[in-house]
């Protein structure tokens, strides 16, 4: 549409582009800073002041220390386990619940739905949940990171709404052909639910990857810790000392500085890597969520 633009509109367009560019820079710069710092020479880096526009020197020493650190390695594997097992459990539970609650003629449906939705409005609180997990004997057990978060109620409702939008005719003809509910779920519903399942994997998977609080309160053994808790020790408690047993004491602090950044990069790379592939599901995910929100 070639509409003649007034001077004011041209000015507006220019400012708009500039404002959004500044926003992008402000969003990306912290990440770029971290990336540059992680490959900087530690002794040059600590002497540097102000914005980092390029790496100060170049060394991958920090990455070597991070990747050789057994705790990083163990916690990385733990996180992968929690993400995969947790997301599989989440999906299975959410699909079962969503399918059952999307059936039309179920006597207890409204009652069960009410029981489930009520938990979005009211919760017993942190302390009672802690004692529930303790009473179940799950303290210091990997299951404590999976079972208490087996279903996210919002996600369950999103999925149910999505199942409800599948034409009933398909299910009816399957029933006439003698299919039971498991067959209908498996052969009719799930094949038609690719996008919503992708959205669920995205939501649940990222939540497990980023989760740390439950691990902090439920786990004692460091061997069970997810990556985020080790990150916490390194980033927020400044305890990089454990990593640098073989670094001479003179250099200790500078290397500690760059180790922080290398750890951040190592912990964030997987997210950055899958991000472009997940992007096409964002809008769908937000929209389905909003409809019922």
């Amino acid at each position: 549409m070639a509409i003649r633009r007034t001077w004011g509109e041209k000015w507006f367009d220019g400012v708009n582009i500039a404002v959004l560019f500044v926003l992008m820079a402000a969003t990306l710069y912290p990440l770029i800073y971290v990336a540059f710092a992680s490959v900087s020479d530690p002794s040059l880096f600590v002497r540097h002041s102000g914005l980092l526009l390029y790496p100060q020197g170049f060394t991958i020493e920090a990455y070597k220390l991070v990747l050789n650190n057994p705790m990083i390695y163990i916690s990385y594997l733990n996180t992968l386990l929690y993400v995969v097992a947790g997301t599989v459990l989440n999906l299975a539970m959410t699909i079962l619940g969503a399918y059952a609650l999307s059936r039309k003629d179920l006597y207890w449906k409204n009652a069960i739905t009410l029981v489930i939705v009520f938990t979005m409005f009211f919760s017993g609180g942190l302390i009672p949940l802690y004692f529930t997990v303790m009473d179940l004997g799950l303290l210091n057990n990997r299951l404590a990171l999976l079972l208490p978060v087996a279903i996210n109620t919002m996600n369950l409702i999103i999925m149910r709404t999505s199942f409800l939008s599948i034409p009933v005719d398909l299910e009816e003809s399957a029933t006439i052909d003698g299919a039971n509910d498991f067959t209908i779920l498996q052969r009719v519903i799930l094949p038609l639910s690719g996008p919503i399942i992708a959205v669920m994997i995205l939501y649940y998977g990222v939540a497990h990857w980023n989760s740390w609080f439950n691990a902090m309160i439920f786990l004692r053994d460091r061997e069970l810790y997810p990556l985020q808790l080790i990150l916490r020790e390194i980033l927020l408690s400044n305890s990089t000392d454990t990593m640098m047993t073989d670094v001479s004491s003179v250099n200790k602090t500078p290397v500690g500085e760059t180790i922080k950044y290398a750890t951040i990069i190592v912990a964030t790379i997987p997210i950055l890597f899958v991000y472009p592939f997940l992007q096409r599901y964002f809008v769908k995910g937000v929209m389905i969520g909003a409809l019922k929100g």
Partner: protein
Amino acid sequence: MENPVTPIDVRGGIFRTSRLQAIKKDFAKRKLIYFMLLPVVAFYVVFHYWPMYGAIIAFKNFSPARGILGSEWVGYQNFQDFFRSYYFFRVLRNTFLISIYELIFGFPAPILLALLLNELRNKWYKRVVQTVTYLPHFISLMVICGVVTDFLAKDGVINDAIAFFGGSRESFLLLPQWFRTIFVSTSIWQQVGWGSIIYLAALSGIDQQLYEAARMDGAGRFRQIWHITIPGIAPTIMILLILQTGHMMNVGFEKIILLYNPNTFETADVISSFVYRKGLLEMNYGYSAAVGLFNSLINFTLLILANWASKMAKQTSLW
């Protein structure tokens, strides 16, 4: 929640089936479905309703050794202790103020971003901005708080900039007066892009003919935004505003715990972080559970009100 007619309603009138028979028949017919629901209901009972029952420790002088049932009742003692304590006003004020700031500054930010994105003519540039601004939503809180701590440290980038312009260096995270600003601005930084998605979707639903008609009438870009775009997304804004108000007193503890320290408790400590500290760190279980229950009740009330209001708004916003 829609209310489909249950079988009992239909059959009850015609066949006079008793309720019990209907239940039995329904169960026999939908055995598999109830079998599927078993783990789901078990999950809700164990991890939601058991803790709700467990919340009665708020009325007890709870000791883990004696268990929930064995501990002695103290009535409203824990609640009274909280209401009378110095912390009551502090955590209530902090929770409220952080919510208000997030409402005033955090709520309009994604709307503004969506409006700006909507005005971009270059679709490629628009996609790039979207890709970049959605990203922080997925970065872990730990990394974000780590970077925030690092940037705001006395030898951090922010202070380097201040020193460069002749200011004096401050340890921002140790100063109570800065906590809320830091908390809210980093939240906006992380969520503004993600939050704009829903408004962009609403914007794409606006009838393009309205713009053409407005241009015919000689309306410029600003008048088009003011008279078409903003009214077009007003219902979405309304609903989201109501929903956010419903979460008013529900400030999550995760980011608070990662950023606060005893120096900033005065402005940083919110209800949920207070519950965590009193309960799990100081093992003051009954007291902490009482504070938690108090918070749950407030949240419950606000959410019910918000839900009711959004239903009203949905009805009236069909203009």
